[in-house]
């Protein structure tokens, strides 16, 4: 290449990037500004909007206790699903990392639920949770427990949604398995030579070496589950008593079912700040327990 910045190079580069630049403009930057702008109005989509300052935000914190409920519901669901999902998928990955028969087949089996449309999974699980003829209550019967209203009880609705979400986290298993295969055998053998047992190998080699993978899974899974909408929409409609009314669900309800765009935009912006704050918190705390090779 003769000149570093030849004119034709510049032209080609921006031509190739043109769709992405349009995307950045129209689906990222302008909408972000739009969220801020619309949140300061009382827009319903029908009449021209009028500027009402911070009223939407004040209403969220005062009159409207849905907002507080939705923050609690979002945190409860997302952290529950992430922690349970990481533990489940890590244990399954450890299991499949042993010398077992049909490893490849089992890996496919555990990954399969991830491919299933979430709405399909939600509908099937809703049927399994059904309180009169559902299979879960039948299984409970063997333990001598009475029938339970899984999705209609405030205490059990969120855990029920979490169980389904955990089932569907086959992608995490595959990532953990790949991470486990990258653990050098020589490290594990060194522990054996020093007289360490399986627990020592796990605690002092596998777990530290995998901490970046755990962190990656934790973060992506958290951001994903904070935005979860379909399970609650299809299985509980946000109930009972708003216990599964997540922030995204509330935003959808205010914006698209009640046409109060101003209110919904204020929610969107707070949701954004909420995710940013949580992500920053997770990053900050990760420094304490993360292990990077070569540090």
């Amino acid at each position, binding site marked *: 290449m003769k000149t570093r910045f030849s004119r034709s190079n510049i032209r080609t580069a921006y031509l190739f990037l043109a769709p992405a630049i349009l995307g950045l403009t129209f689906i990222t930057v302008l909408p972000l500004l739009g969220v801020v702008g619309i949140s300061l109005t009382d827009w319903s989509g029908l009449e021209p909007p009028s500027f009402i300052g911070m009223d939407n935000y004040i209403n969220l914190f005062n009159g409207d206790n849905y907002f507080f409920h939705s923050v609690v519901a979002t945190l409860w669901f997302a952290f529950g699903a992430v922690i349970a999902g990481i533990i489940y998928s890590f244990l399954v990955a450890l299991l499949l990392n042993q010398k077992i028969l049909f490893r490849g087949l089992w890996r496919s089996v555990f990954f399969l639920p991830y491919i299933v449309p979430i709405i399909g999974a939600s509908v099937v699980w*809703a049927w399994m949770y059904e309180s009169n003829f559902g299979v879960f209550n039948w299984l409970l019967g063997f333990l001598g427990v009475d029938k339970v209203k899984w999705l209609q009880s405030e205490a059990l609705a969120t855990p029920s949604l979490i169980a389904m979400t955990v089932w569907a986290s086959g992608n995490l298993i595959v990532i953990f398995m790949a991470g486990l295969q990258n653990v050098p055998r020589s490290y594990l053998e060194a522990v054996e030579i020093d007289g360490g047992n399986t627990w020592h190998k796990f605690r002092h080699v596998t777990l530290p070496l995998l901490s970046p993978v755990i962190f990656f899974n934790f973060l992506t899974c958290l951001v994903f589950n904070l935005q979860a909408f379909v399970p609650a929409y299809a299985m509980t409609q946000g109930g009972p008593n708003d216990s599964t009314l997540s922030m995204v669900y509330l935003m959808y309800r205010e914006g698209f079912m009640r046409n109060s765009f101003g209110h919904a935009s204020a929610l969107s912006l707070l949701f954004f700040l909420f995710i940013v704050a949580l992500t920053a918190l997770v990053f900050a705390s990760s420094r304490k327990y993360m292990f990077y090779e070569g540090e």
Partner: protein
Amino acid sequence: MLVPRLLPRIVFNVIAVIVGLACLFPFLWMIRSSLMSNIEINTYPPHFWPDTPQWMNYPNTLKAFPFFRYLLNTLTITLPSIAGVLLTSTLAAYALARIDFPGRQVMFTLVIGSMLIPPAVTIIPIFVGWTTIGLSNGYLPLIVPAFLGGGAFNIFLCRQFLMTIPRDLDEAAVIDGATHRQILFDILLPLITPVLIAIGLFAFILYWNDLLGPLIYINNTDQSTISQALANFKSGFGTDWKAIMAASVMAVLPPVALYFVGQKYFIEGIVLSGLKS
């Protein structure tokens, strides 16, 4: 010596079988319920398998749940979107990985930055935008974004993959007088097919499974996607679980079939997105 060594292996295999079957159970239960009569499905304690499988449940469900129309609707959104994602993310990734131009670092930072913005945050202004130009009811709002860069994560993934291919290849081609278009499509494209297949498959799953998008932009039930139709069917036929399960089987089948065909690429794609980034 043999027993202590063999015992953990047996235990692990047994656990794998139990947990694996538990993982498959919802699939089994869905199929089993879809083949039952109304009386049998509401029997307690439940039968594990229908006495006589009611195959007619499927044709009967199709009358209220026109699966093939929904399939066509879904493909009308999904196929162009995948093409858009593949084309525009590859172009952007190539520019970011292979061309020296002023502003490259800024562009790269912007792309990475936009990855951090959760899509749920901007749905309202984007909807308002489509309403303003009178196109808020239909497929366009669901397809067009795919042609605008195809998602920051895909650009990033493709760019990372391109970075691993030696640049000597391009430089030799430049000396032979090749243009950037030729370098990308004739030389590099065959080398980056694994990542493109992974991106394509995940785009398929994403568009196929999307529910929020169709709920917002498709108001006409004739135009419903499969996911949307299944959600409507479930709320509309509340207690007819055999029909709801038959509809679920149909909705779940295409992605599962695709998974069995492209399994290798799915697994590789997940590993790629999970570990390389």
